[in-house]
């Protein structure tokens, strides 16, 4: 069966520090991968999606970047965090037209 791992679960980082969140998927190949951010426990904002290795599409210009170095690995990064980067970050995967499956999320607090 397929599983998705996302870590860390919580993270507190100072303003100006770098960020690296990792997401890996097991049990499938060539998934579509997504990074979402959720603010204040409400709507989801799509940040990045990837349909293959090295293929990244950015939805919203911002202080973040994403990379997909391997088929089932998706990394969200920042060189210098801002206070406004705080939020709940969710990784997800899907195949074609099917439903997406989500990781457990990372609560990022920038202080």
């Amino acid at each position, binding site marked *: 069966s397929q599983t998705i791992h*996302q870590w860390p679960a919580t993270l507190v980082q100072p303003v100006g520090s770098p960020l690296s969140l990792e997401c890996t998927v097991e049990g499938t190949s060539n998934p579509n991968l*997504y990074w979402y951010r959720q603010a204040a*426990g*409400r*709507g*989801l904002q*799509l940040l990045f*999606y990837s*349909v293959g290795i090295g293929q990244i*599409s950015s939805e919203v210009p911002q202080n973040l970047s994403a990379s997909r170095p391997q088929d089932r690995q998706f990394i969200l990064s920042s060189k210098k965090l801002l206070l406004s980067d705080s939020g*709940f970050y*969710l990784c*997800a995967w*899907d195949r074609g*037209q*099917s*439903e*997406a*499956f*989500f*990781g*457990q*999320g990372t*609560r990022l607090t920038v202080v």
Partner: protein
Amino acid sequence: AQSVAQPEDQVNVAEGNPLTVKCTYSVSGNPYLFWYVQYPNRGLQFLLKYITGDNLVKGSYGFEAEFNKSQTSFHLKKPSALVSDSALYFCAVRARFSGGYNKLIFGAGTRLAVHP
């Protein structure tokens, strides 16, 4: 524009009563529709989907949803609510964008509160 709307920020229901969480959509072509539930500080869990076929789809935890093409709606329902159903519910639709990519578009979410 392709979109999903959840018109209610919050729905309050007494335990044992039926519940409905509303969703309407706007997409070109045939819609692929989904419902997810989110508990505090957790990821989204898939509940059910409509791809084709019977307009009434059944999902996890006793939930069901009815696809209505003429009203472009996909409301989530449950005959008898439980306190444990209290959570944040998201409706989503697949939409095709330029470049051939299709992505999930989520509604803003509806908070369901079931009172004892």
